[in-house]
């Protein structure tokens, strides 16, 4: 199996299927949905093969593929994965399947809708697997195009404002990264990410490069104060768009930080860790309060996402403070591992919450919390799943939401008591906004005639809910496979970032 170009298949199979759907869709409308489902299932199985063949004992890149792409600049089509990218690729292929199932009832040009998602999936996988900085950038930017169209064509009433804002924010952030990458290439003569990891750079330049990377990834994550595009995009996007945005696209920023910012400019990251930690704490605490004030369910989840992604950035940058405080490298990986777990877990939970809102929206066509009340009376099964997901969002032990947050808070204690104190307020705030939403939407008397007429989950929705519930509980109860997968890579990363690159 190992001689198969598995990664290329994962990238190009969905893209080829997207082209096929777009071309054949109008002629064979009946085949569109099955074809998309089969494609995503096949890619998901292929990604499981990737997992089964993955050697968790090493931090080296695996399943490498390398072809010359642009000879004049020594740019390669270079793919490979390690313990940091594999979980995210698995998440991407899994969410791909769920999106196709979740988008089954789309009636406006379904072939283009599914084609856009397949294209997006291929591009995201390519980005997680890219080992050449320019290739990474190409995937990173190209995915704006399908997402722009998804929100703009199939979105809500204010979709045009939301999608243009989304596009321009992300484009604005990423152009600085392009300049930084070209500068690194001109200095070191290589676009290979692993070469960039080894390249010596003086501190002043590192700081500028760090800031350029930070703008790019902070917009994607998104970090406070460049988060304002996310609530708009989430609210206006169709359910599938919200799911893929929350579950996978936000992780791109976090992945960028571990793949680029930390290892390429570790000294600047160490010097400016206060900045990222400060912004993360603001996101965690302040955005938590903002979430509390929302009356729109999707907006509430969007703000909750920003707050939870604050844990990711916090966890990633705690390592430096821990090393400074304890002088040891061994414990410093805790925050990074926690951040990675938090990314995966947030992928499941936020995806699940958006699907749950989608279930209600498909029936009542309202996202307002006040339009509901007592849904548990008419949709008991659905309420069970939804309550589980919102509990997980609040960080209930036994769910995946607990694992990542707990690890990060624990790491924060090693770094600074007050970091941990502020971070831990999220347990309070998260529980407050999640449970308050549950109370207002699901419990109490049946709110109105629309709620009274609700029918419980269809078979298709059952599939989605059960899958995500199993994953949320699975990672919560037994996170070992996930932690094991990334252990060697995280350790390698920590050992790398404590070494100075200033010569």
């Amino acid at each position, binding site marked *: 199996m190992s001689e198969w170009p598995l990664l290329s298949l994962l990238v190009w199979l969905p893209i080829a299927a997207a082209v096929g759907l777009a071309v054949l869709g*109008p002629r064979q409308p009946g085949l569109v949905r099955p074809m998309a489902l089969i494609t995503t299932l096949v890619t998901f199985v292929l990604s499981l093969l990737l997992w089964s063949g993955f050697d968790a004992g090493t931090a080296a890149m695996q399943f490498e593929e390398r072809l*010359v*792409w*642009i*000879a*004049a*600049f020594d*740019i390669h089509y270079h793919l490979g994965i390690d313990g940091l990218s594999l979980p995210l690729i698995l998440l991407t292929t899994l969410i791909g399947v769920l999106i196709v199932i979740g988008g089954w009832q789309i009636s406006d040009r379904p072939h283009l809708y599914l084609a856009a998602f397949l294209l997006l999936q291929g591009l995201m996988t390519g980005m997680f697997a890219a080992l050449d900085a*320019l290739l990474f*950038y*190409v*995937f990173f*930017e*190209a995915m*704006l*195009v399908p997402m*722009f*169209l998804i929100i*703009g*064509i199939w979105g809500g009433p204010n*979709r*045009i404002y939301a*999608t*243009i804002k989304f*596009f*321009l924010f992300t*484009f*604005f952030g990423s*152009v*600085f990264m*392009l*300049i930084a990458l*070209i*500068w690194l*290439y*001109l200095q070191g003569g290589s676009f290979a990410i692993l070469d960039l990891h080894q390249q010596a750079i003086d501190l002043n330049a590192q700081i500028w490069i760090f800031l350029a990377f930070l703008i790019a990834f902070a917009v994607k994550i998104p970090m406070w104060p460049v988060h304002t595009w996310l609530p708009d995009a989430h609210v206006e996007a169709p359910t599938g768009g919200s799911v893929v945005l929350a579950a996978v696209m936000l992780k791109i920023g976090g992945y960028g930080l571990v793949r680029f910012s930390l290892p390429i400019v570790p000294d600047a990251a160490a010097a400016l860790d206060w900045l990222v930690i400060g912004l993360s704490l603001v996101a965690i605490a302040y955005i938590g309060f903002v979430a509390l004030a929302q009356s729109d369910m999707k907006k509430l989840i969007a703000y909750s996402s920003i707050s939870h992604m604050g844990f990711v950035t916090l966890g990633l940058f705690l390592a430096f403070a821990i090393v400074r405080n304890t002088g040891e490298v061994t414990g410093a990986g805790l925050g990074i591992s926690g951040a990675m777990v938090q990314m995966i877990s947030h992928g499941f939970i936020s995806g699940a919450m958006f699907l749950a809102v989608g279930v209600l929206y498909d029936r009542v066509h309202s996202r307002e919390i006040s339009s509901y009340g007592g849904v548990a009376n008419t949709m008991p099964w659905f309420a069970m799943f939804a309550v589980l997901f919102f509990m997980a969002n609040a960080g209930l032990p036994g769910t995946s939401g607990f694992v990542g947050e707990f690890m990060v808070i624990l790491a924060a204690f090693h770094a600074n008591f007050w970091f941990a104190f502020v971070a831990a307020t999220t347990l309070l705030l998260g529980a407050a906004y999640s449970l308050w939403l549950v109370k207002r939407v699901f419990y109490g008397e049946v709110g109105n005639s629309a709620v009274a007429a609700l029918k419980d989950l269809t078979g298709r929705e059952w599939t989605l809910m059960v899958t995500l519930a199993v994953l949320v509980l699975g990672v919560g109860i037994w996170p070992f496979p996930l932690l094991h997968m990334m252990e060697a890579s995280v350790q390698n990363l920590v050992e790398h970032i404590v070494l100075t690159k200033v010569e």
Partner: protein
Amino acid sequence: MTINELQLALPEIFVLSMACVVLLADLFISDERRGLTHLLAVLTLVFATILTLRVMLPPGEVLYAFSGTFIRDRFGDVLKVFSYIILAGVFVYAKHYLRQFNLFKGEFYTLSLFALLGIMVMISAGNMITIYLGLELLALSTYALVALDRDSRFGSEAAMKYFILGSLASGLLLYGMSLIYGATGSLDLATISAALGDGMGDSMLLTFGLVFVVIGIAFKLGAVPFHMWVPDVYHGAPLAITLFISSVPKLAGLALAIRLLDNGLIGLHGDWQGMLVVLAALSLVLGNVIAIAQTNIKRMLAYSTISHMGFMLMGILAGTPEGYAAAMFYAIAYAITSAGAFAVVIMMSIDGREADQIDDYKGLARRNPWQAFLMLMMLFSLAGIPVFIGFFAKWQVIAAALQAGFVGLSVLAVLAAVAGAFYYLRIVKLMYFDEPDQEAPVSAPVDFRAVLTINGVAVLALGVFSGGLISLCVSAFV
């Protein structure tokens, strides 16, 4: 003059003869059979391609003819071949338009071929006089083309403006050349370069000469502050002519800049670099910002051209082989993409009205899904989004500017690109997110649709597989 020298200039001689043949033959072709003229013009381009490729020189080799006034090198050959290919596409697009607007006359082809000859002469020029000859041949043909629809007030006005401003710019260029001649005693670019290398010439005289030369170049490229003619001419000219002006002559502009500034005046690099930085920065900002305010797509694309010329200048100003290669890639990429974008505008122009309002593109994705998708690719390419060719052009010129140490200019350029993305996105928004006023698909002839498809796919394919074209451009400056 030997046979060998004539052979080097065979493509030029062939195009000249064929331009005359087309002129004469068209007299005997009736209006119903005008397609023959079109066919003859396209065949001219096909054979010119063959003739040029027959003696494609290896990288680094340069041949001189006619006492050094004519240069044959890889840079020139590549640019010429792309000029033929793009012009052939322009002919196919233009035919559809000219038929619709009762302008389908032989003069279009004759004048275009003479303009092409001017472009070829400029590309192969080794002497300031040759450059000037080529430039005037191109310019005079273009003035006449702009006024092709003689009953149109806008067309005549645009032609008049273009003529007056163009003459002024030619005069300035000529004045600059004469000053440089005065300082170095030669019109031959290689001799000038050698003289400058020896430190010959009065520096005051040279600087004055250089300023006028740069102004001439900036005018031809349409760089700010010498851009005033661009929006008016783009707007006033018939669409087919706007399409022509926005594509092939950009390659000539690049050749003009590189022949003069690199082959001739590289000794003054320190002086002209500073001037180009200012021109590039102004073009980038002004072009992109003013384009946002346009509701007429011809004017919008005109301001977009101005900003793209700013990007191209970023490559030239580096003054390195990598920079020139990047600028060359940029010019080719821009010419291909711009031709495709204007082709969609032509396709939408039916019932005797040019579809020049951006609202005409509402809901195009529902009416013509495929053509809307091609337009989407052109627009994202112009905006510089991967994986289209425009992105690879942009990052190369940014790399060239960064290598020359212009970090500030590079940051300005990417910020301008973000601002520019907005008005390209607005067209995508109209095409994809809005509902059409009428449902009926817009029709176009088979050859038009085929060339448009090839054009759109090229914008994608030359991006995904950009390695080949990049290598070709790099090999032109070995």
